């Protein structure tokens, strides 16, 4: 075991898979000589050479299109989109191609590409370095969508993504690259080295895609969340002294419905939290699923906590971010509700 932050854990995942599988290649803007603007690919070009770690032109559509072609020819490309906010030029290649090549060719062709993209706000990045576009891709059949919330999961999920047979969109909440964040920007940051999930095996292991993690068990209410919001939700429940069960879904598509519904059936109350905007956000899918599966167990309407339905504003970052107060208000609302029958 070693102590790693999320960047080191992701780097280790790439290192481990590149060492194990000769067909794994890395491609993206500034990922080679420089090691990536967040340093996730640091040292890889030195170790594996410039034929396997490629600096690319600034053309996200080209990066994904070329990665698809490489995958069709037997490679396992891991493409980096420098910020999730810059994935849009690649949407056609992802939604129309990457997601459907297996389907339209009746399984004769497939392109297991992994696309990594740092996402989320809280770093004073303004509207073009803060977005969480995961729901755009969960709406596309044929790609898997994951988002780890700690170094251990980051490494295990990335290895699973690269070694799997499906295309994966791998979103990395960059606010928690260096340490968990409870939503209070005035508190000094806690490094991952002081958190149990900063303990990461140096070698190979996987975290299966499609399995949620119960971060904390509890009886009062189930909080379903992922990414940066996992720790914010923990903090909010603590503030109110509520015994919340907190589920980090880790993977949006496929979704571990069994873990979620079992918990909600037990607690009877549910709050869903993500940083992305609320309207048509992934929370809507979660809420609909829970309503379908757990309706007769619910004692209160499901509450959603999310970013406001605006672009991510530079100067109002903390007014926009769904911090502990927003989560707490939702928790109070579900706890107060008497349920339809009373």
């Amino acid at each position, binding site marked *: 075991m070693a102590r790693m932050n999320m960047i080191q854990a992701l780097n280790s995942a790439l290192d481990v898979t590149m060492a194990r599988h000769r067909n794994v290649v890395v491609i993206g803007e500034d990922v080679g*000589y*420089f090691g990536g*603007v967040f340093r996730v690919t640091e040292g890889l070009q030195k170790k594996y050479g410039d034929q396997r770690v490629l600096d690319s032109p600034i053309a*996200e559509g*080209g990066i994904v299109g070329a990665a698809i072609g490489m995958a069709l020819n037997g490679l396992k490309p891991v493409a980096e989109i420098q910020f999730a906010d810059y994935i849009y030029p690649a949407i056609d290649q992802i939604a129309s191609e990457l997601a459907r090549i297996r389907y339209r060719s009746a399984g004769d062709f497939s392109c297991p590409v992994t696309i990594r993209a740092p996402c989320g706000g809280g770093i004073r990045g303004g509207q073009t370095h803060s977005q969480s576009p995961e729901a755009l891709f969960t709406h596309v059949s044929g790609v898997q969508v994951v988002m780890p919330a700690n170094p251990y999961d980051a490494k295990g999920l990335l290895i699973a993504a690269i070694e799997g047979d499906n295309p994966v969109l791998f979103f990395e909440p960059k606010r928690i690259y260096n340490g968990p964040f409870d939503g209070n920007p005035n508190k000094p940051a806690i490094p991952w080295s002081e958190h149990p999930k900063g303990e990461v095996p140096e070698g190979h292991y996987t975290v299966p895609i499609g399995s949620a993690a119960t971060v904390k068990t509890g009886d009062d209410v189930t909080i379903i969340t992922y990414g940066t919001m996992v720790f914010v939700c923990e903090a909010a429940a603590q503030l109110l002294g509520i015994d919340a069960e907190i589920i980090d879904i880790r993977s949006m598509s496929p979704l571990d419905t069994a873990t979620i519904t079992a918990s909600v059936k037990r607690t009877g109350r549910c709050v869903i939290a993500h940083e992305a905007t609320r309207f048509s956000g992934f929370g809507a899918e979660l809420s609909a699923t829970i309503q379908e599966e757990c309706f007769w167990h619910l004692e209160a309407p499901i509450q959603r906590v999310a970013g406001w*339905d*605006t672009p991510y504003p530079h100067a109002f970052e903390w007014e926009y971010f769904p911090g502990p107060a927003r989560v707490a208000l939702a928790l109070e609302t579900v706890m107060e509700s008497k349920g339809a029958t009373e």
Partner: protein
Amino acid sequence: MPRLHVPVTPTRPGDTPDFSYVALSAAGAIKRPRYDARALDLDFLATGLVRVLDDDHRAKGPWDPKLDAETLRSGLRNMLLTRLYDERLQRTQRAGTIPFYMRSYGEEAVAVAQCMALQPGDMLFPSYRQQGFYMVRGRPLVELMCQLLSNTRDMCKGRQLPVMYHWKEGNIFSISGNLTTQFPQAVGWAMAAAIKEEPNIAASWVGEGSSAEADFHHALLFASVYQAPVILNVVNNQWAISTFQGYAGGEQRSFAARGPGYGIAAVRVDGNDFLAVHAVTSWAAQRARAGAGPTLIELVTYRAAAHSTSDDPTRYRPKNDYEHWPLGDPVERLKQHLIKLKEWSDAQHDALSKDLDGQVAAAWKEACRFGTMTEGPWLDAHLMFEDVYAELPAHLERQAEALQREQALNARLGLTSAKD
């Protein structure tokens, strides 16, 4: 066995700077065709390098724009102001007073000379490194600085990162963080000018790195198909963050050479030569205004500073490379040219520098009165919900109300944000 070609980066940290890859032409060596020449006769402009100032700081050849001394001094002043503005804001960022900044050090001639060669009614679609436009078109520095501070006078109402300015009245479009999106938009603006039979043209700028995006090709294609009155500029400052221009396709051919493939007139110009940049831009503007077609201009220059305040270029290129850049420094070259003409002196230059620096300092003081990151007044957070749509929709009104409840709870829990 063939191996994948990896573009060659000539020098890395520790190496001696080497710019032998830059294809140069002598000052005055390139022919100046008529503004309405057929694009297919102009391929030589895309591969040569239009230069006017020679090593002895004299103006030479057919591209000499023959500008009067007053105009030259005004160009020098605007470039110097841009540089001093950048330097102060860089220091301000280092001191923690603004969160982010991007300089245009070494490429001031691009924005300044080009903007001066255009008409005030021409519409500019910049990237983030053409702050010189604002100096030329005369926007008060205080207004720019208020944007950097996201304060109560911020033109963006707190919604954009520092340097992402815009100026409706000054005909300068809003800067996007998403690279190259402005390029086809400029073409569309120019198409509209043609449809409306108006005389104004459009111009847009991208870095050479950004020319890799598909939007670059959309722009060239639409400009060619509709012969739009537009000038499309590639600022080839050699670097896109850590990647050398070869990664954008500059290794095999010049960026200007993309033009002829689309049937567009294209000119490669010494971007640090104020006179050459002015002349080429005037030529392209005349061409566009006369309905003779669009022009692609590649401005060969050097990004002398870091990409942004988040970047450390010593990690990927030699420390002292700018000293070896073969096209020199734009401010220094225009200054020496004016001195040669006996229209300027070192003493005048120093006095101007001091005066401009004083103006920048005074503007900063003034801007801070409208709020800083640590001291109010601050913008009203309700602004966050405005301008998403033309009217405030009901669901955003509810979210704005929810924010107020949340802020009350924040206050009770002691979770107030940094600025409260």
